[in-house]
């Protein structure tokens, strides 16, 4: 209970800070700020983008998740790994890659003479964000599919349902917790992202907030915008809570877990290959090509001394943040799944607010708070790690919660009747079964922290420049060649980390 409460307090601080800022202004001015037609545009833009990205990521990830878990296709492990890789690609790199690929004078034009209209604005943002966020949904769906009880499908078949009917009426409904968890993360990501949308010149709430903070220094308007974004986030959280209510999906049958028999793809084999090829081409090869294209333009040494320092900085902030976040996510998910009550559900919901708080606002709020409450923390690595943790907690809670839903509470009771106390019973019986969820949680947070930009900008100790900060500062000044080695390093290290985590999971199975 205690860790959950601490986290909630940590998340609520930025909220109160925003409220203070917003209320600083006089009522008339505030009203004027709230009732602007521009806000309506921002609102529709933001919601349309979120909805579009959700549909796109679902379409991309559901077939991939099914192919990697339920078919006899060879190379499923490698495919799984490849489908997670896009997480390692920073959004701004993806956006640059898309922009550079299309349009007159773009890569496609230069290489093949094909002139596609330059992708930007709504469709550009949608494509860019979808291409690097779909792994969140993919991983959630994959662990959901792996945890399903195959007897339920067999029972439905015996009751006269065709395989595709079973899919819609039995499998999909059971995948709901996984789907909601993944969709929530992606939805909140879209609400908070500013890298891709600013490059694509598509005006959403967070882009507007960024402009207000960074360019025009109108903090009151920025605070109001942030509060409105909060409102949207809250609505999303409430909807998700309503949808999840009453869902209880641990196995009710007897006996132990069995895996479903994989099916052969048959005549769908080649269309599947084509589909996978297109997705991977767009999400991995395209940005990689862009990076290599930039590297090709480098004159002088490829790896400067700055690169090693930046790598050290990135790792020293991201790895502890991943560990801390996963550790905190366990009690939060646990109390909300095992002792469901209004209070515990609310606590879990609040942890999502940290994710939905625009990163810039969160960072500024933490600066404000530490300067007045504990100045010794200001501009330290510890504060940066705390900020990452508060911001990325929701990414870790989702997979941990999905894993918990699928472990029967009877196992813990069995352990307790054998003389283990509440904590030991959990660690001995449920915890080993949650490994998949914990790995996914840690991987998400690590990758996100490696790419994170605005929080790092504001909270990092002086002279502490991560890989992401370097990529951004060089690209923002159009020094793409200098940015490339840093972007490549992020990619390589993130992939290694993901590969390591998944290799462990595979060795076990």
């Amino acid at each position, binding site marked *: 209970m205690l860790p959950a409460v601490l986290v909630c307090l940590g998340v609520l601080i930025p909220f109160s800070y925003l409220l203070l800022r917003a209320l600083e202004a006089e009522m008339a001015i505030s009203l004027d700020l709230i009732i602007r037609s521009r806000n309506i545009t921002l609102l529709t833009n933001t919601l349309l983008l979120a909805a579009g990205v959700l549909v796109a990521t679902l379409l991309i990830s559901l077939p991939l998740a099914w192919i990697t878990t339920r078919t006899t296709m060879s190379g499923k492990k490698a495919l799984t790994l490849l489908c997670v890789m896009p997480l390692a690609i920073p959004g701004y790199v993806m956006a640059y890659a898309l922009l550079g690929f299309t349009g007159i004078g773009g890569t496609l034009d230069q290489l093949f003479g094909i002139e596609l209209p330059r992708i930007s604005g709504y469709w550009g943002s949608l494509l860019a964000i979808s291409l690097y966020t779909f792994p969140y949904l993919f991983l959630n769906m994959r662990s959901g599919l792996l945890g399903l009880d195959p007897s339920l499908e067999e029972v439905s078949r015996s009751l006269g349902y065709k395989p595709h009917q079973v899919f819609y009426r039995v499998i999909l409904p059971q995948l709901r917790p996984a789907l909601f968890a993944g969709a929530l993360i992606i939805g909140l990501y879209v609400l908070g992202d500013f890298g891709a949308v600013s490059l694509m010149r598509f005006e959403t709430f967070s882009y507007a907030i960024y402009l207000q903070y960074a360019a025009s220094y109108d903090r009151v308007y920025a605070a109001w915008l942030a509060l409105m974004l909060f409102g949207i986030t809250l609505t999303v959280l409430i909807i998700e809570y309503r949808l999840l209510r009453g869902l209880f999906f641990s196995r009710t*049958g*007897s*006996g*132990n*877990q*069995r895996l479903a028999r994989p099916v052969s793809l048959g005549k769908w084999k080649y269309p599947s290959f084509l589909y996978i090829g297109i997705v991977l081409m767009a999400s991995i090869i395209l940005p990689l090509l862009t990076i290599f294209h930039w590297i090709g333009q480098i004159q002088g040494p490829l790896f400067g001394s700055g690169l090693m320092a930046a790598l050290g900085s990135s790792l020293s902030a991201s790895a502890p943040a991943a560990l801390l976040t996963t550790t905190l996510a366990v009690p939060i998910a646990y109390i909300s799944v095992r002792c469901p009550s209004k209070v515990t559900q609310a606590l879990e919901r609040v942890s999502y607010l940290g994710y939905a708080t625009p990163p810039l606002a969160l960072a500024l709020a933490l600066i404000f708070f530490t300067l007045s409450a504990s100045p010794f923390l200001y501009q330290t690595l510890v504060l940066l790690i705390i900020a990452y943790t508060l911001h990325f907690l929701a990414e870790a809670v989702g997979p941990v919660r999905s894993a918990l839903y699928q472990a*029967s509470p*009877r*196992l813990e*009771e*069995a*352990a*307790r*009747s*054998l*003389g*283990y*106390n*509440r904590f030991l*019973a959990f660690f*001995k*019986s449920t915890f*080993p*079964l949650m490994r998949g969820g914990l790995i996914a949680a840690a991987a998400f947070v690590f990758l996100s922290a490696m790419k994170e930009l605005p929080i790092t900008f504001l909270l990092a100790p002086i002279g502490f420049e991560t890989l992401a900060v370097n990529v951004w500062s060089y690209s923002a000044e159009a020094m793409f060649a200098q940015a490339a080695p840093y972007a490549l390093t992020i990619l390589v290290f993130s992939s290694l980390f993901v590969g390591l985590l998944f290799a462990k999971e595979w060795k076990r199975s």
Partner: protein
Amino acid sequence: MKELLKVEGLSKCFKPDHCKVVNDVGFEVKKHEIFALLGPSGCGKTTTLRIIAGFEHSDEGKVHLNGKTLASSDQYTSPEDRGIGFVFQDYALFPHLSVFKNVLFGMRNIPREKRGEHAIELICMMGMREYMHRKPHELSGGQQQRVALARAIGPMPELILLDEPFSNLDAVLRQSTRDEVRLLLKKAGMSALLVTHDQEEALSFADRIAVMNEGRIEQIGTPEDVYYRPKTQFVAKFLGTTNLIPADANGAEAKTDIGQLTLNRPAQGKILVSIRPEHLTLHKDDNNAPGTSGEILSRDFKGHDITYRVRVKTRECLVHTDNRNTFQLGDRVKVSVLEPAVVLDKIEEDYSKVELLEVL
């Protein structure tokens, strides 16, 4: 024999304005005794078991083990400190641990160097030696059941709670496993509290039975007691086929449609009595034969005995007889009573509406 577990006045409802799932339940389990809570599904027996194990809190009532209070209004001992074994209906074996490690899991009160030996001994006793290093998903239902039992027995608790432990086994396996488990519990000198909805299982497995209905215990007694001397209509019906007959009692005797009956205890006025089909018998209908005349409506041949449906006056009743004298449909017979009729306590509805024939 000394009492081991004592339960007093347990009550529990899951939602404030809902009816009580467990309602003023109290009983005792003696040392070395096997005790069964028997009732239809939803009668609150599993909840009672979970309260005793400490997985649920009761609203009212007390649980004592060996004179120590485990739960009362101001006291609560957590499950791990109760020293009570639990066998789950779905076994709840740890899927990530082998059979050996599952059994080893609970033996924390046994010196480290002796644990392995003790676990192997238990596994061998269960006839699971060659499966020792398998994972639970590689075992059949019966094998999982035995591992679950071995795991619960491992720490040598004085009391083991069994939640419908045989319900997932097929009929043949159920009988043999039941006998094995009973022998094992007796050999180990453990007491057991079993929850079941299967009356046959309760009758053959337990030393004493408590029959539960809608959250209340209706009767506690030995298998013979509850079967032959049911106190209520529910108990009489739940424990097997019976004839419920309205009667006009006057002391030790009563008048009914099937003639004058002796009662098992004195009663007065309009009552309901229960007579098991095997306590009735049939004779050829001649003037010398005792009993009341009736007509055979149907017969059900079961090899070692035959069950007849007989119409006596306006009512029907069931009669078990051996297969020495057989009757055909439509034969005139005389029905006579072999044992005293059992007086039932409560007449739930207007008894004149109760059908003479009650078949479960």
